[in-house]
């Protein structure tokens, strides 16, 4: 009879699994229709709705009561998770909180999800997140995939090297020089163009990239200067050299067609600049007042 009982348990587990999976599927569907602004059905209605003056994406976020933002967890000054507190902090994070406060009246109504340069576009297209605020450069290629807000930060690509390195600028990168970058970032595409002889090593995120540099796996690490300053501030053995050799205007990305969300973000950015709040944020994280535009 013990065997019978096993059979019953087996069948029960199977039924529960199937039901749970079906339930999850349904929930997902509900999300798609109701809360998630970036999923396809509501997104298509969003674009047509905006033309008629509606705000379906914003309404969906308000109904959900939570703004879901994709940010970096590994990038000092912009989005860094502190093991001690478990909190994520940085310039991008403060912008995300500000947006949540503006839209939902409370800065704690923001959910931060970790993205990397490699995963952020799929994450937004798949409806995991409403916004990408993750040191993301506005490029023509990316504009085909997502919609961008106005520029909220101006960076430029530069190099980070160990102090005393013979590499002092992009011109010092010769054949065989190993340059470390991050998968899916504009920096690796740029460096392949500006220094075609370099061997470019690519890692999944900035933290692994910097660890690889410290482990001596590369001669230089390349990405946007602001991110590099964050690394240099963490480890004084490293310095940013050679100035910038590209312009990297950062934008906040939304899923294609969510025009009402873009308009809302742009309004907020404008307010931030007008009130002087932006300069304070800039000073708080970057340590100097931004160059006037």
């Amino acid at each position, binding site marked *: 009879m013990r065997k019978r009982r096993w059979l019953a348990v087996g069948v029960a587990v199977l039924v529960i699994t199937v039901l749970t999976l079906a339930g999850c599927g349904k929930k997902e569907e509900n999300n798609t229709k109701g809360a998630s602004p970036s999923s396809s059905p509501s997104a298509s209605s969003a674009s047509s709705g905006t033309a008629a003056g509606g705000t379906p994406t914003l309404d969906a976020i308000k109904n959900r009561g939570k703004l879901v933002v994709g940010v970096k967890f590994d990038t000092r000054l912009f989005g860094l998770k502190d093991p001690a507190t478990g909190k994520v902090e940085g310039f991008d994070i403060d912008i995300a909180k500000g947006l949540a406060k503006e839209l939902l009246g409370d800065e704690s109504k923001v959910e931060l999800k970790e993205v990397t340069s490699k995963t952020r576009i799929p994450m937004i297209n798949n409806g995991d997140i409403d916004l990408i605020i993750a040191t993301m450069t506005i490029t023509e290629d990316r504009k085909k995939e997502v919609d961008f807000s106005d520029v909220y930060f101006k960076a430029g690509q530069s190099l980070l090297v160990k102090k005393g390195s013979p590499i002092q600028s992009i011109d010092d990168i010769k054949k065989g020089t190993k340059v470390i970058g991050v998968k899916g970032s504009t920096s690796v595409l740029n460096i392949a163009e500006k220094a075609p002889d370099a061997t470019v090593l690519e890692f999944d995120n900035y933290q692994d990239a910097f660890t*690889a540099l410290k482990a001596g796996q590369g001669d230089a690490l390349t990405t946007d200067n602001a991110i590099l300053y964050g690394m240099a501030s963490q480890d004084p053995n490293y310095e940013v050299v050679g100035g910038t050799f590209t312009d990297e205007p950062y934008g906040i990305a939304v899923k294609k067609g969510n025009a009402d969300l873009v308009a809302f973000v742009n309004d907020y950015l404008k307010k931030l600049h007008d009130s002087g709040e932006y300069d304070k944020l800039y000073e708080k994280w970057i340590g100097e007042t931004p160059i006037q535009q």
Partner: protein
Amino acid sequence: MLDFSILTDHFGTYLTGLGQTVYASVLALAGSFLLGTLLAVFRITPAKPLRWIGTAYVEFVRNIPLLLVVFLFFLGLPPLGVVLSPFACGTLGLTVYTAAFIAEAVRAGILSVPKGQMEAARSSGLSYGMSMRLIVLPQAVKIVIPPLNNQFINLIKNSSILSVISGFDLMFYADRIASETFVIFSTYIFAGLFYLLLTVPLSFATGWLERRLARND
């Protein structure tokens, strides 16, 4: 559904990655076969310290993830003044990891050779090492081939871990193609097909070998 332009536009990139994947897997197979055989012999020698080393190695390595082994080479060697390329770290990690599994396969092979063979060889004046090398191991190889083939399949699959440390393998180049084209689904489907191109024939070969050996017995 499938975007075939990904395959046609980036065929060369896929092939470069495929070549590196095969290269890493073959190197690691050769290395782990040598190391694994040595460990297997360690585990069955009468010498206690050697047996202890063999057992400790196998038990420890089998119970920790490959990623961790690779990271130990990638991050742990530089402080000792040894900096190897990501490809070398990945291949070494694969070798050290797979050796533990091959050691078990080879040990089973050796134990399957009747004890009388070793005794006969020893009594006819051969040393332990020579009996092992000339009499026991050649017979064990027959039994070891199918599991070895399986380990080769595992190596090819596991070599994808090189992509995490920038090892320029198939998975690494798939990441690069996806980053440039923003096409995820098709890029990784094609990458998967390239892996299957390597592993499925090997998988069939293993089945065939096992059946043949079973018949011979």
